[in-house]
């Protein structure tokens, strides 16, 4: 008996000390930017406590915590300049920005998840466009319609408003758009006597893409590059979903609640079979090198705006064409955007910051830093680059054919389901059975949101 009580008291002491130590560790780990959720949680606790202490001293400043994602240094510097300017311009608002590395996988969303569970979200945060709806559905971010007038809203390109809208309410605004262009190696096309398209009207059809890719494929070079080296992830949905839309299909029902009959529709299957054919014909490889297109080892490439930058850097004689189509002309769209969380006490100031970060001046600055198309219509008009070939094609595409990815709270699972299907098609699997399996997965996830 006695032994047991010793043991018990021992355990209790340990528990007691544990409770103390977890408090003190949260205070001591100020600037550790470790990757574990534990660290990040205590990180934000720290910022939170600074906030309240400043408010308590009677300072009337509104303090806004702002999380931005970092993908490249130029981009981050542009953000920081914009935020400094905002702080200078607004005497009553002070923005405290935190840059979180976005490794393209899950580092940024891990931070958001950790803060969510701990209840320490910032006032404004960067969110990837298609994820807006799942955050909105869960009440993590709030609608901003009442702080935005119609005129301001109309200045953004339609696709930015489309990606930020869920259930008829506007939740997010972005500074940049994105797109996918059909890049080509001018020398190789000349050699093969193939005429590139130089406007949306002249866009290649699926058949033309197939034929020309075949013609351009030789012993030591591929006709087309689909950047399968990015892995099975968001890229495949971003780049591949327009094939489905162009064929009159959809990934999910309009209201985002049903995939059966959409993800496995004949239109979707036909589009995936087209992908399957491209790979079966050997015009594209599932494991291209990082610089396959830039080094002239692929004649065509369906790539993002950043490919223009890297092709230019590599000294390639390149050009770009619009995204190929079947029936309807559509093109990929959507990028990182900003949203106001439900954690904020000053939604008005938070929206003010969002507008600042996405106004004409800001979008031009960020477009210059990243090569991405701007999200403001006027920015397109005022940037010379986008009014001349070949960049004017990207502008036309963003304004005329951009199609946002579906708005559904189940997006994280839906995008993986499509990416897996696309990848299976590239490997020559039976598209129909793969798609059926994925439909079951997404339907299970959708049940979570039925109420």
């Amino acid at each position, binding site marked *: 008996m006695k032994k047991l009580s010793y043991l018990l008291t021992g355990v209790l*002491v340990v528990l007691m000390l544990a*409770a103390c130590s977890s408090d003190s560790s949260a205070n001591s780990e100020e600037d550790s930017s470790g990757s574990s959720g534990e660290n990040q949680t205590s990180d934000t606790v720290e910022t939170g406590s600074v906030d309240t202490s400043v408010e308590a001293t009677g300072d009337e400043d509104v303090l806004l915590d702002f999380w931005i994602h970092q993908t490249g240094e130029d981009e981050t510097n542009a953000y920081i300049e914009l935020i400094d300017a905002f702080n200078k311009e607004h005497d009553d608002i002070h923005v405290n920005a935190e840059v979180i590395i976005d490794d393209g996988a899950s580092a940024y969303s891990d931070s958001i998840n950790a803060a969510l569970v701990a209840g320490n979200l910032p006032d404004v945060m960067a969110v990837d466009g298609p994820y807006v709806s799942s955050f909105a559905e869960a*009440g993590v971010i709030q609608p901003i319609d009442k702080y935005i007038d119609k005129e301001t809203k109309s200045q953004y390109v339609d696709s930015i408003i489309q990606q930020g809208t869920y259930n008829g309410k506007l939740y997010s605004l972005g500074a940049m758009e994105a797109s996918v262009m059909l890049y080509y190696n001018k020398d190789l096309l000349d050699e093969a006597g193939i005429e590139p398209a130089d406007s949306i009207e002249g866009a290649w059809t699926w058949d033309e893409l197939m034929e020309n890719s075949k013609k351009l494929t030789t012993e030591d070079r591929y006709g087309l590059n689909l950047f399968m080296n990015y892995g*099975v992830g968001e890229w495949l949905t971003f780049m591949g979903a327009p094939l489905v839309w162009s064929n009159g299909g959809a990934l999910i029902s309009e209201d985002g609640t049903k995939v059966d009959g959409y993800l496995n529709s004949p239109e979707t299957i036909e589009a995936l079979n087209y992908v399957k054919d491209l790979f079966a014909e050997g015009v594209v*490889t599932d*494991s291209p090198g990082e610089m396959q297109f830039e080094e002239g080892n692929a004649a065509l490439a369906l790539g993002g705006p950043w490919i223009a930058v890297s092709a230019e850097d590599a000294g390639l004689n390149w050009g770009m064409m619009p995204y190929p189509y079947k029936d309807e002309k559509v093109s990929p769209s959507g990028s990182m955007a900003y949203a106001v969380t439900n954690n904020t006490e000053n939604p008005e100031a938070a929206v003010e910051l969002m507008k600042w970060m996405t106004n004409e001046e800001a979008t031009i600055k960020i477009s210059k830093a990243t090569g991405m198309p701007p999200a403001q219509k006027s920015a397109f008009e005022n940037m010379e680059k986008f009014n001349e070939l070949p960049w004017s094609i990207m502008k036309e595409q963003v304004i005329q054919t951009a199609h946002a990815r579906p708005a559904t709270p189940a997006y*994280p699972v839906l995008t993986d389901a499509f990416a897996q299907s696309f990848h299976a098609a590239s*490997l020559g699997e039976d598209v129909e059975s793969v798609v059926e399996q994925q439909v079951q997965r997404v339907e299970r996830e959708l049940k979570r949101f039925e109420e």
Partner: protein
Amino acid sequence: MKGNSSSAKQLTDHDHYKAPSEPSIRKVPPKRKKRRKSQAFQEAMTGYFFLAPALILLGVFLLYPMGAAFYYSFTDFYILKPDDISFIGFENFSYIWQDAQFRQAFWNTVYFSVIVVPVQLAVALGLALLINKKIKFRVFFRTAFFSPVVMSLVVVSILWTFMYNPNEGLINQLLGVIGISPQPFLTSPDQAMNSIIVMSVWQGAGFQMMIFLAGLQNIPNHLYEAADIDGATSWQKFLHVTLPGLKNIALFIFITISIAAFKLLVQPMIMTQGGPLGSTKSLVYHIYETGFNYRDVGYASAMAVVFTMIVLTITIIQRVLIREERG
């Protein structure tokens, strides 16, 4: 929220803690027997005091997360709605049996372990034997074989991803020299797991080699001399002197490799993202994805609980086997 509840617990714990200890201190002990008891108590407390740092760390970073995972496995915890957790009984566990991805991940993990464990064991032993001989450049070889262990597994995975590339990778270029066409090492569902196995054996064997080496040097030299006198061939010496001498070490390595193999995560995460067609998705990776990418912490916790049971079972079976071997 979490902070509040734990500090509340801290208070009550404190009260409980005082209650049993107070009487023993207040009553001035008239007899030696009692004093000895309080002395023993003090000694025990001192012991716990010294144990405290380790126990606290264990509690905070091991016991608490394990308890939390066990609790969450019976709930529908969805990361985006942390305040809306409801108890759903065994629903998560029953879904495991319908989850085709879990089944695939389970068999992938079993396949990986069943191959990696014996191969790595054999390679490590082979390397240790080689290095134990008095050959030239012995130190160089030892360093070379051990260096993959020192490198971060993430770095190693990225390097091997480059080497496996069908178009520009080193291995395929070498194969090209001897006339073999490029192999889709990581992009073919049939080859991807085997490619990961090869890389994993190469990466891990160096560490086990060092342990084997220590074991080899522990075998008394007079046993070999006696065998020489009896006219044993080197194969006979290996079979009847070296192997029996390494038995305990081999079993230790066997268990550590098995557990490590079951926890396969980094290689598929970096090299294949679990693909192609899920052929390299491991159990831990599936749990990770479910929890963090699809935010379904409840279901991920349930799978983690089941995973722990599986590893525990395997370890117990191995323990039983060891006891038999020793007896």
